[in-house]
């Protein structure tokens, strides 16, 4: 009896928790923070409203008919089967309703396609499975960053509780100033991806070999999260987009900080590294990029991604491994997986990651230490 009542209490509290969860769930587009997103938001509500009115009209007729014109209530069928006037009316009237929908939509289409006069132009490149950003023009020109999923695998596999921004957090946010027209040029390095930030009303496919553009002007500071919206392989669900919109002052400070980092990275590449330094840096670089396919254990996934443990490439000549990492390798009929080229990573990161693979998981390669200069020479 007591077990029973405990079960009932548990079920009731679960139901309450679930209900409050649904109340918190979102039932409309996210709050817009750009003029375009606001137009889209209103357009969607307008469409929904028109559809709701038609829905109620049409189905009142249907359900009244189902209620009143039944054989069981003795209704006799009236044998009409044509009425030209009615048929013309219900062809013409929807036509005018559609024009009413198309008019505001056309204005929004023209506004959102107009990406002229940007303050800042940023190139976004989709990779399997991360985003790269290059600031091409405007304040911050010359900066580059790679943006990887920051959620640890332990959260995905349930070994750790999931954080607030589970799967919607990255190691380096894209930072832009508030109130400025930002033009995003989109392309991809491997397959088609799509850059989507709902609060901005921007979704644009990133197509390998082509450049497309989109633009936004965020009116409110804050952190806005989106995801890749085009199936791009196994980790399609694991390449979020995070845009941090900051005040112009903060943006200037961020740009200065990044510039300083860039300078020290150049220094990094010039110096001779010790094995311990490379291993520490390499573990991080491996975690950011290589882990998606080759896994934390280095063992890969059978029939999909090759193991690095005892691998001929990793234990072989370091020049060959550098070349492979830089330029990638195409799949073959039987070996379906493809090593994507990693040339976008810095010399230091590539050198460190290679050194890491040559000295972990029991691997003991002959010349285990790879210096950034080696990578630079191989480029």
């Amino acid at each position, binding site marked *: 009896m007591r077990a029973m009542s405990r079960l009932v209490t548990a079920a009731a509290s679960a139901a309450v928790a*679930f209900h409050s969860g649904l109340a918190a*769930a979102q039932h409309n587009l996210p709050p817009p923070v750009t003029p375009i997103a606001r137009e*889209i938001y209103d*357009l*969607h509500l307008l*469409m929904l409203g028109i*559809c709701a009115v038609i*829905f109620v009209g*049409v*189905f009142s007729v249907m359900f009244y*008919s*189902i209620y009143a*014109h*039944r*054989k*069981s209530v003795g*209704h*006799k*069928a*009236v044998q*009409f*089967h*044509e*009425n030209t006037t009615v*048929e013309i009316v219900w*062809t013409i009237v929807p036509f005018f309703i559609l024009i009413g*929908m198309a008019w505001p*939509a*056309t204005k929004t*289409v*023209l506004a959102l*396609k107009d990406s002229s006069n940007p303050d800042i132009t940023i190139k976004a490149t989709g990779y399997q499975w991360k985003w790269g950003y290059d600031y091409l023009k405007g304040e911050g020109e010359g900066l580059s960053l790679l943006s990887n999923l920051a959620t640890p695998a332990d959260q*995905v596999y*349930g070994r750790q509780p*999931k954080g607030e921004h589970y*799967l919607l957090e990255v190691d380096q946010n894209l930072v832009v100033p508030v109130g400025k027209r930002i033009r995003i040029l*989109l392309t991809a390095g491997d*397959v*088609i991806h799509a850059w989507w930030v*709902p609060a901005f*009303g921007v*979704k*644009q*496919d990133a*197509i390998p*070999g*082509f450049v*497309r553009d989109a633009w936004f002007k965020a009116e409110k500071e804050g952190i806005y999260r*989106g995801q890749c*919206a085009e*199936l791009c*392989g*196994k980790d*399609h*669900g694991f390449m979020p987009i995070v845009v941090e919109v900051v005040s112009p002052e903060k943006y200037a400070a961020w740009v200065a900080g990044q510039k300083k980092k860039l300078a020290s990275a150049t220094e990094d590449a010039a110096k001779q590294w010790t094995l311990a330094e490379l291993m520490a840096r390499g573990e991080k670089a491996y975690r950011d990029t290589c882990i998606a396919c080759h896994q934390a254990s280095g063992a890969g996934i059978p*029939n*999909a991604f090759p193991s690095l443990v005892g691998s001929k490439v990793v234990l072989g000549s370091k020049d060959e491994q550098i070349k492979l990492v830089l330029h990638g390798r195409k*799949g073959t*009929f039987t070996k379906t997986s*493809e090593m994507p080229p990693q040339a976008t990573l810095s010399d230091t990161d590539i050198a460190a990651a290679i050194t890491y693979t040559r000295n972990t998981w029991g691997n003991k390669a002959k010349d285990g230490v790879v210096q950034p200069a080696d990578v630079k020479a191989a480029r």
Partner: protein
Amino acid sequence: MSAVTDRHGHHDDHAHYQGGIMRWITTTNHKDIGTLYLWFSGTMFLVGGILAMGIRAELFMPGLQVWNPEFFNQLTTMHGLIMVFGAIMPAFVGFANWQVPMMIGAPDMAFGRLNNWSFWLLPFAASLLIISFFVPGGATGAGWTLYAPLTVQMGPGMDLAIFALHIMGASSILGSINIITTILNMRAPGMTLMKMPLFPWTWLITAYLLIAVMPVLAGAVTMTLTDRHFGTSFFNAAGGGDPVMFQHIFWFFGHPEVYIMILPGFGIISAIIPAFARKPLFGYSSMVYATASIAILSFMVWAHHMFTVGMPAAGILFFMYATILIAVPTGVKVFNWLATMWQGSMTFETPMLWACGFIFVFTMGGFTGLILAIQPVDIQLQDTYYVVAHFHYVLVAGSLFAIFGGVYFWLPKWTGRMYDETLGKWHFWLSMIFFNITFFPMHFLGLAGMPRRIADYSLQFADYNMVASIGAFGFGLSQLIFFWVVLKCTVLAQGAKAPGNPWEGADTLEWTHLPSPPPYHSFETPPTVR
């Protein structure tokens, strides 16, 4: 002519076919082949359904619990391919085989051996698809839309899918040639095209769509094949190709394909509603014109599936206007069905329940289609769960509900036995409720920003995904009732004997001129239509 028919008359009441399995392998009889198509489709529906259960099991909770992401992608891809090419399309061809000759008063399909071959291609194609799960790298995980260049990264499973699509396309084209020839040449004397029931009409138009677009799909997947293995660069920018060209070619096939999967459903609904409203179909000729307009428009709207690839404004506006224009003929159809019900004397046996359910949910799918047609709104909804909700409203609640309605409507004719009315109603109500529990919340998920085809999702999507998964399991289990009902009428031979016309208001030739079940060869002497 009449003397010849008379001499053969007493023979033809008897079935002449080989016993056992050879009857089915060698048959040229439209009823046998229709039956084969329908059982094949039912089997594929089960396979595709099991894959769907796999998808919903993974999405029950955030995190990866059941599958790894690459297998998840294989599940969504193969669920789509199997349901579209294995379940829905063959089911409608099965209906065409059974119903077109009987409804137009023809003795059989025009080309018997071709008919046999169009069916027997399918099991080979389906085997390729299923085998592909077991080759290195597994089945293709590039989505049923098979976008390049992701397809180039797939393993040999991709090649098997390409060959399967080639074979299924060939089967569809052969079947369509047969249907067109039968309808144009073999109608009973007096049955002019504009006196023909709407089901053959919708199939006539569908068959033309199939002949027009299946070669286009074959071309697209062949180019994928040569890009993969023979060094061509149709879809590779580095070699002068264009990945977006694949999408244009695919959707030039894909959008008419959508109507291929719904127009015969319109035909079935247009047969059921007058029968149970005891009143002729309202606006017959406008129904025919609306069907034809939808078919023609379907060739001019393909790029609305690609509103986010970055088209020029003029392109966007053209495809947006053309797309919303489809709402006009589609609206005409819905209004005509309502006017057929209006002032009728309706009863609600299972087929009528499915027909009413069809109108209700299909119209909801139509509304979300209209919302998606507005390009700026589509920017937010493209490739999200809103789209998943939309096309399941038109394909499950549209095509599949129409198929169920048609099966219940014609089972008494095909088998000579009444189906179990109580179980049929249970099947309808459970399907209707669980369908909406599964797919209605997906509208909210899409609006809130959940992309489709992801194996794991962030926490704000958790609640509705759980609701959708519970609905999906319920929907899946409800379909077992359907198979039980069909088994009872067929293999188990249970249920009351059906009269020639069990429906008071049904007035097409198969009900008025033929017993239930009809003889193996029917209408050897054509009936005369006034």
